[in-house]
């Protein structure tokens, strides 16, 4: 029979290893979620959010400063309301900043990129970001391209004539 002491020792090692793994996963693999205490919420209205999901990053100059908290459709104004939670460390974002929905890489998800404006006033909890740019929808893009090309085609025909 294995002595109780040895059993306890290896069980202890096993349990510690398990918790160490959990700690590793939570701290090293994940982007720790901003705790609600030291963050503030702003929102923006978009015509089209593309495939933006709650939990997506909000970034300035490529640095993640917050996350998308919720996305709902507002029937009064027929727009999507995107609520974002931003870390309080970043409390000097001008009110006239511009929020646009961007795509990271070909397979990457969509995120919100904030382009800093020039006002002296800063966004605070509950504010709205007025300037927005909707998601690029591939179909619209293609339609525009097609339209442009066909118009140009007509023009060339006209000049030839």
């Amino acid at each position: 029979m294995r002595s109780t002491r040895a059993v306890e020792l290896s069980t202890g090692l096993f349990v510690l290893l398990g918790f160490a793994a959990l700690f590793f996963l939570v701290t090293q693999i994940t982007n720790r979620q901003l705790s609600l205490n030291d963050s503030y919420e702003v929102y923006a209205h978009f015509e089209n959010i593309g495939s933006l999901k709650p939990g997506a990053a909000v970034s300035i100059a490529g640095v993640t400063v917050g996350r998308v908290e919720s996305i709902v459709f507002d029937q009064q104004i027929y727009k999507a309301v995107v609520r974002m939670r931003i870390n309080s460390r970043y409390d000097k974002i001008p009110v006239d900043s511009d929020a646009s929905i961007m795509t990271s890489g070909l397979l990457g998800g969509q995120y919100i990129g904030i382009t800093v404006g020039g006002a002296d006033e800063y966004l605070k909890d509950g504010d709205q970001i007025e300037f927005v740019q909707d998601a690029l929808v591939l179909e619209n893009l293609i339609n525009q391209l097609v339209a442009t090309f066909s118009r140009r085609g007509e023009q060339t025909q006209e000049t030839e004539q």
Partner: protein
Amino acid sequence: MTLLRELLDSLRSFVATVGAVALFFVRVLGQIPRALLRPGLIVEQVYNAGALSLVIIMTCGLFVGMVLGLQGYDLLQRFGSEDALGTGSALALIKELGPVVTALLFAGRAGTALASEIGLMRATDQLAAMEMMAVDPFRRVVAPRFLGGCIAVPLLTMIFISIGIFGVQLIGVQQLGVDAAAFWSQMRASVDVSDVMEGVIKGCVFGVACSLIAVYEGYTATPTAEGVGRATTRTVVISAVLTLLLDYMLTAAML
């Protein structure tokens, strides 16, 4: 007509088995407070179910991670998105492969050991002897083993995932040359604490399910060599099916 009757019969026996397992579960739960008074017994079972499964879990985790590294790289480089390897494989490991493969390995390694141990205790009158000594086998035998499994599986899952990510990194970054900074930063950017929690929840649920099946099959085994053998086989089969079924349900619920 006879086919219908047979179907009805097997349906009825299935429902009866589900009921029996549920009642068994309630009985185990009822004895847990008293089992907790003897932490030494639980430690012993965490050792049996967890510490003794560590080697197989770590080996399998490493290989699963390495395969993910190879396959993931092969797939992603077609789109020029090798940098997403960290994200993709970490999510796959945390949400699916880690909990599921750990549960399957646990059922094969520790579940069968539990079932055959309890079955043999029944076959050699040890459980009856305990009852005669006024010791409830549910408190002394079943509950500590059940708890040991429930504690061990989530921990094993976390270890499996960590080793797996190390394996992905080993192949992807060290061998195939994915940029290490991109690998880790993309992974960090898109994996959330809630994803890890999903893995933990799955690990806990699978731990409860597989441990319950193992102790139930052992406890209700026909007390013969053949009966105990059948109980261990059933433990693996039922645990595997139940794990995958629960996995689907949990995934659907948490996505």
